[in-house]
């Protein structure tokens, strides 16, 4: 256990080594919130609602995606492709760690770092922009939302392992990752709530793992998802499927690893 605590601490130290880099990264996260905030303000600040969302509801959703993005999608496993291609993976492979735990602990350190900054950023956004935010008080919805977020963290971790493992067979890991990022920006519900789309589109997207990263946890928190139980079950199912698949891809890939560059 001690070695994992050390790994966690070292990862945090690594993040804090490049301070300017770190600060700029966090500043960028605030800007992610700004554009949709102004757009929705232009449309809804005068009152009324769109697709059942009032200004307060859409702001809560946006605010929630900003927080969840940092928590769920803050990851160090995105380095996996680079580590394979550069041969840097050799070092953790030789250490007495379970490699999946190694990456997951690093992910957790990244998430803690993001979370700590949110304690500064959230009051700052609230102070400057005064977005109306809905706070959930029903303990059942809160518990379900926490469960959904934990599943989302696992899901994103496995997606990263699978995409990173592509580097075992190809040097071009950036292109598939770019495509994944673009698809996720839309299909996770980060751009706008997915229930604004036509029903057929919603059903198709809900068959993929992506909406379970942001959209479903947020709707669960808001208590506005009529199919919460089904969606949590599907989310759990995706975690199991992608967990098995990530393991399968890794086992196949590691056999072809040549530690090139080391």
């Amino acid at each position, binding site marked *: 256990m001690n070695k994992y605590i050390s790994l966690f601490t070292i990862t945090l130290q690594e993040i804090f080594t490049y301070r300017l880099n770190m600060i700029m990264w966090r500043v960028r996260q605030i800007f992610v919130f700004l554009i949709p905030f102004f757009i929705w303000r*232009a449309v809804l600040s005068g009152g009324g609602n769109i697709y059942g969302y009032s200004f307060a509801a859409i702001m809560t959703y946006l605010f929630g995606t900003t927080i969840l993005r940092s928590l769920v999608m803050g990851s160090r496993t995105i380095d996996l492709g680079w580590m394979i291609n550069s041969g840097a993976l050799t070092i953790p492979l030789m250490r007495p760690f379970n490699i999946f735990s190694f990456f997951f602990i690093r992910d957790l350190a990244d998430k803690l770092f993001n979370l700590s900054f949110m304690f500064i950023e959230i009051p700052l956004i609230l102070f400057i922009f005064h977005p109306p935010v809905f706070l959930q008080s029903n303990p059942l919805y809160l518990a379900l939302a926490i469960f959904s977020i934990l599943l989302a963290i696992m899901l994103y971790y496995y997606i990263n392992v699978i995409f990173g493992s592509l580097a075992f067979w190809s040097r071009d890991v950036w*292109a598939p990752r770019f495509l994944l990022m*673009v698809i996720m920006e839309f299909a996770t519900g980060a751009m706008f709530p997915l229930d604004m789309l036509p029903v057929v589109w919603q059903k198709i997207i809900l068959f993929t793992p992506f909406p379970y990263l942001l959209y479903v946890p947020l709707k669960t928190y808001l208590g506005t998802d009529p199919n919460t139980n089904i969606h949590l079950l599907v989310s759990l199912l995706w975690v199991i499927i992608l967990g098995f698949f990530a393991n399968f891809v890794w086992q196949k890939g590691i056999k072809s690893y040549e530690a090139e560059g080391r």
Partner: protein
Amino acid sequence: MLKAYAKVWLKLTAQQFQNQVANARGAAILFIFGKLFRLATAFLFIWVIMERAKLIAGYNLSQAIFILALFNFISSLTQLFMRGIYIFRQKVVDGTFDFYLLNPLSELFYSLFSYTDPLDLILFFPYLGIVIWAWVATGFPITLISFLFLFLIIIISEIMILSWHIFIISIGVRYLEVDNTIMLYRDLERMGAFPVSIYGKLGENILTYAFPFALMATIPANLVFGLFNPWYLFGFAALSILQLKISLWYWHRSLLSYSSASS
């Protein structure tokens, strides 16, 4: 002199093409698909809002789409020519920048323009086609005079964009930080994809006069819609030259602090 720059640029671009074809054909297809998908989802976002809201800051759906299409076109034009900024830090760190300084052509030219992405070239004409399609959809006529004014605005905005890029790599020479600064600039730039009046008076003024983002889409679109007086372009031209002069001054100041420590 310009001929020499054009010749070198063509040569470097051809090399990038060869590199792409030899090493990353599959990746190129994924990139192109990704870029088109991203544009399509941005259009979808506007459609989702406008289907119910009808107007955003006084613009209807086809006008908002025209603004987004213009933004996308001018932004990709910048990416096409100034992509070198993304690898500039590495060039300073590994000492390659020393060779730029020794070269008979300007070190700024090599720093910014020496890394043209062929994928941006491939997407140039589809993006232009989307602008023309969106323009036609607004119902405002495509006239020679409005076309010429648009061309002039693109030149002015590109001068302002160039100034900001020079400023960012100057910071890179001094503090070795380019990557996050340029990404922050790109995050801000995205604000220009929508009518700048939605950002309030202060936001609108900053995006119009300090940054080139209003010039990238809202101002040219307003000109087409008859909402912008072309005489103001003289003021913007003067502003762009002022910004360029300031950024060049800062660039030369930064070069004085360059220690060539990596070589």
